């Protein structure tokens, strides 16, 4: 429950500070992209759009929300009965809750406006969002790990670079090296096979690996944000 209350605390703080301005802008951009003959858009166009949308959304939100307290304000929650692990988990849950809600909202909108409703039932379409939740989890783990809160200001750049390579997969040889973001997005609207299952496995490895690394680094780091 501690983690849930910390995420509620984080979400309330974030909402009152930002009024979700960045999220509203991103939603507006996605809707603008739909404007041209949106009723003709098929699942193979809508799901990649939702995939890239969730990738950008979670990158921005993870950076903004988890770093709300890279200053002396962090000392108050951390002197309460919270471990550093609880703290990081609370921040991660806050980002995931908000982004999952926005992704679901955008799915509902997409389902109503595009031809996805002719290809999938509402429930099937919702089920096909699961790989995109995987994208959210991978990207959040990487950004969390590379955020100023956990490691260093400059490491965020490396996090974004990993995500760019993971979503572009420019070289075939790196398919099993970079996080399988592109593969997950494709698997959200295509039929799955044995190769897809191996990509899911790789995704789980990435998720567990980066969250564990974030927990480890945050547990070890010296919290001296006051001097900065």
């Amino acid at each position, binding site marked *: 429950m*501690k983690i849930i209350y910390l995420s509620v*605390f984080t979400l*309330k703080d974030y909402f009152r500070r930002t009024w979700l301005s960045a999220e509203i802008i991103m939603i507006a951009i996605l809707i603008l992209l739909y404007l041209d003959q949106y009723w003709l858009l098929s699942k193979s166009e809508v799901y990649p759009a939702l995939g890239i949308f969730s990738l950008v959304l979670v990158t921005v939100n993870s950076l903004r929300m988890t770093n709300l307290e890279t200053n002396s304000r962090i*000392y108050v929650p*951390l*002197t309460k009965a919270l471990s550093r692990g609880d703290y990081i988990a609370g921040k991660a849950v806050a980002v995931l809750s908000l982004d999952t809600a926005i992704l679901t909202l955008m799915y509902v909108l997409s389902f109503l406006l595009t031809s996805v409703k002719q290809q999938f039932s509402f429930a099937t379409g919702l089920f096909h969002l699961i790989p995109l939740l995987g994208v959210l989890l991978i990207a959040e783990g990487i950004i969390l790990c590379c955020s100023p809160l956990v490691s260093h200001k400059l490491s965020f750049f490396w996090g974004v670079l990993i995500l760019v390579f993971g979503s572009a997969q420019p070289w075939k040889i790196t398919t099993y090296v970079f996080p399988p973001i592109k593969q997950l997005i494709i698997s959200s609207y295509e039929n799955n096979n044995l190769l897809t299952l191996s990509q899911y496995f790789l995704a789980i490895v990435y998720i567990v690996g980066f969250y564990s690394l974030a927990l480890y680094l945050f547990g070890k780091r*010296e919290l*001296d944000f006051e001097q900065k």
Partner: protein
Amino acid sequence: MEQVIEVSNLYKGFNGRNVLADVSLTLSKGQTLGLVGKNGAGKSTLIKIILGFLSPTSGSVRVFGRATTTNSGLIGYLPEHASYHMVFSGKEYLTLLGKMSSVTDVHKRVSEVLDLVGMTNDANRRMSRYSKGMLQRIGLAQAILLDPSLLILDEPLTGLDPSGQKDLRDIILELQRRNKSILLCSHLLNEVERLCTQIAIIHNTAIVARGNIKELLLSNNKYIIKAVGLSGTAALELQENFCLKKLSSGDYLFEEEYNGHKETLLRTMLDAGAAINQLTPVQKSLEEYFLLATGGSQ
């Protein structure tokens, strides 16, 4: 007596430079320890190590006999800079902090602490509209929210007007009556003198003086002697031989230069026919003591 904080031979370095060197101090249960030092002396670093935010380069720090990394929730902390989540009201902030700390009957507890710090009437106002004094009160309220037995208060009275200082001092005195152990870090030496039972002076990365505040301030070689019946010649002789200074009729200031010096003087005075009514050690002010300990007067 049970030790709440035990710091021994602590070293902390940043970029090859020692910020703390061979620091040792203890805080016993129910005591109030004043940690004083100039800016940059290492006070905040020491506090952050005790809180587990920074790790020592070497040496050991134990709080309640445990490693500092496992003490979250056991220490109430009032940070030096009133930097809180200003988008909340005071009540909402405390309630959320209480919930995330699994406080039972959180609303009742929040009302209690708001009442203790005198913020009940302003509890529903947004913290961004609070004055510095109100923020300090809310800071103290969040520090005592979990009813910890150890409180670390970093500059609790700085920046407050005299009435705000008095109010906050009264709250700290109330916490002392409740047998809380307090580590109080302050630049206001008169407040430290009033509130603390123990003191540690930190200077140039090291603790240069520590102990019971009254004993330290009395650890002085100067005495006031009240004596009557000394003849004029005897008094002059004593003033010459023992560097005795006459303050007023029958009052003398004496500075002891070696062990047994005082006893020799008293014996001589009695032999000269004086009746000694009183021998009182002269107490320094904390400011004088601090300046002596840190070489600040130079």
